């Protein structure tokens, strides 16, 4: 060929190779995926909730195209079977075999405490949107365990105690599942209720997954109380609501439910026996707030059901950590930087519609609704806010340092003020 053709062809070749090399360069710069280990009880007493944890989590990552800060998100889901031993095994496997960058999830407090104990030893960040064990953000804070988009067990029942006083209830009883979440929720209620002059007549505790609650209901019916604070989750909550109605007690003694007992995961399969039940929570799927309604509509379109606290909390939790990952430019390997970023995020676009941030101890501050179970126009049951307690932290109105001097809530200590 002559010189002109040669020069033209070489120029084209160089230009072509330059353009062809560009994608290679970008691909090399694109880092390895961010691996997240999500644990949820896919079998056991809160299996319905566990499934929704995974759904809410996946929905968020899909909404951002499965990648953040240029890195793909890889979620490995493990079933903890609502059992702390299994949760520990799975956590070990996720961290040591699957080499995840951080852990997320679990529902039952006892599983969360077991995993938190494990990550304390190896520094893996662990995010817990649903694990509500008080001390994880109070007396036994672990630096790498953060309650993003979560709540502490005694945080939401305290307004419930105040609500009960305002309704004029003088004597109350509590019935609860016998594990730390139950002890702490009842403690929160009892302390506020008794400090306002109320009296706790008796407290009932039963193991998780109790099929027949009639021994307890029979005793409650004869106590002469104005109201009962009910702390149940999952299958136990459905059973309680049905058996309470079957016993003929609905309407005779007032119920103040914990937020898990009237959660979507429970009430969507119930009927008239659940209508009108009152509970206190930071999330109400019937809230008229536009961002809440948009989230509910999106969730309903995708999963053909209304979102529960499990779906909502993990959606918001994923959103929170995604903001933090963006803040550290995708460098999740630097655990210190990631955790500092997580603690500093003020989440403004969550489905709650209001900006949420963590208090200095690592737990979010929320507006807590008093909400009631009502029927939507299409007949489905959902929780509608009736009134609001603004800016409730995990410490209620107490000074944190003074509050933490009192013992943790347990079966023996329920914060009951002696008169």
């Amino acid at each position, binding site marked *: 060929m002559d010189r002109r053709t040669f020069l033209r062809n070489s120029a084209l070749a160089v230009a072509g190779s330059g353009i062809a090399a560009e994608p290679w360069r970008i691909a090399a710069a694109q880092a390895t995926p961010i691996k997240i280990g999500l644990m949820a009880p*896919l079998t056991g007493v809160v299996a319905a909730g566990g499934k929704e944890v995974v759904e809410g989590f996946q929905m968020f990552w899909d909404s951002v195209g499965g990648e953040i800060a240029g890195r793909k998100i890889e979620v490995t889901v493990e*079933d903890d079977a609502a*059992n*702390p*031993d*299994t949760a*520990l095994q799975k956590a*070990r*496997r996720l961290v*040591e*075999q699957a080499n995840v960058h951080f852990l997320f999830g679990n529902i039952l*407090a*006892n599983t969360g*405490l*077991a995993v938190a*104990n*494990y990550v*304390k*030893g190896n520094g893996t960040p662990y995010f817990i949107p649903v694990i509500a064990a008080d001390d994880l953000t109070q007396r036994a804070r672990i630096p790498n365990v953060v309650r993003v988009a979560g709540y502490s067990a005694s945080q939401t029942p305290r307004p419930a105690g105040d609500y009960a006083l305002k309704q004029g209830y003088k004597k109350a009883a509590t019935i609860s599942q*016998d*594990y*730390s979440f139950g002890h702490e929720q009842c403690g929160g209620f009892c302390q506020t209720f008794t400090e306002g002059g109320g009296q706790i007549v008796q407290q009932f505790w039963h*193991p*998780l997954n109790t099929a027949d609650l009639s021994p307890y209901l029979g005793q409650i019916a004869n106590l002469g109380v104005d109201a009962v604070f009910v702390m149940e989750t999952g299958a136990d909550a459905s059973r309680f609501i049905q058996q309470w109605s079957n016993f003929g007690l609905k309407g005779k003694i007032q119920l103040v439910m914990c937020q898990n007992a009237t959660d979507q995961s429970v009430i969507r399969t119930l009927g008239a026996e659940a209508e009108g039940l009152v509970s206190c929570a930071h999330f109400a799927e019937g809230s008229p707030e536009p961002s809440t309604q948009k989230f509910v509509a999106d969730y309903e379109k995708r999963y053909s059901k209304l979102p529960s606290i499990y779906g909502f909390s993990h959606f918001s939790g994923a959103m929170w950590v995604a903001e933090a990952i963006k803040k550290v430019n995708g460098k999740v390997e630097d655990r210190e930087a990631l955790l500092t970023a997580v603690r500093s995020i003020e989440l403004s676009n969550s489905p709650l519609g209001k900006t949420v941030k963590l208090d200095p101890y690592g737990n979010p501050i929320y507006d807590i609704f008093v909400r009631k179970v009502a029927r939507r126009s299409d007949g489905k049951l959902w929780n509608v806010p009736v009134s609001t307690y603004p800016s409730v932290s995990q410490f209620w109105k107490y000074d944190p340092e003074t509050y933490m001097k009192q013992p943790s809530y*347990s*079966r*023996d200590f329920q914060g009951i003020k002696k008169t």
Partner: protein
Amino acid sequence: MSGAPMKIDAQLPTASPANGWIVLLGVLAVGLALPALVSGYYVSLGTQVLIFSLLAMSIDIMAGYAGRTPLCHGAIFGVSTYAVLYGVSVAGFPLVTAIALGIAAATCVAAIFALLAIRTSGVYFLLLTLALGMIIWGICLRWTRVTGGENGIRGDIRPAFLGGNVPFYYAVLGLAAVLAVVMWRFVSSPFGMSLKGIRDSEGRMQSLGYNTNLHLFLGFTMSGFFAGVAGAAYALFNNFVSPSTVALTQSVEGLLMAIVGGVGTLWGGLIGAAAIILLENIVSTYTERWPTVLGLTFIFIMIFAPEGVLGKLRAVLTRFRN
């Protein structure tokens, strides 16, 4: 001792002690090499296999050698775990004291169970030990003040020099090797022979003048001691205990490990533990339905090799030799 194997029981061919030592050293060599061959997570699986093989072997002492199948050794194992974690996390004892406490507690519980159960046999023994194990589980579940109830007891009790996967694995390997040899010598001793005699015919042993109840009591208590040592090791491994550690499923799993490996072979416990734990962990990465796979495997083994893996292996080898 002559080199020919002693044909004491017609059911299973026994290996001669010399062969036994060779096999043991071979297994030990594999065990020592393991951390060099696999990653950290599989080393911790190896530690679990060793701990549970001790449990399975302790069950085999009763089921295989004394002929009484117990369903309570999971509870005895778990009592030791609870005692060790309680001792260190709640009572503040030094680790060695807590471990001694755990083993002592397990041995005492086994002794009490033995007193109650040894006069029965067969299905009744099975049911009685099941019930006794459930009593322990019930106490652990509901005595929240002491055992933590559903939450269990957490701790950080492993000493710093055993902190990593590999150092702890070697410590457990050493413990398992020593304990396995002790158990082996125990069942091969004249006392072990008497237990086998009681298994084969209690009436005949009694007519020969043996105090069969005392033999069974001591055998049961010793098997509880071994289960207790395994339980203490588990406390160090897990740093956590909850009611599921003493539940019936733990006893059943231990018994399954003994059966899969071969009841009456003692070493079958190691094979059974390895089979079940590896199956559980590896299959569950591929499917959620791993209990189905486990069940089918078990059915397969029961149909084609009811004497267990090791029993089948020995039968095949003997047929091959003859």
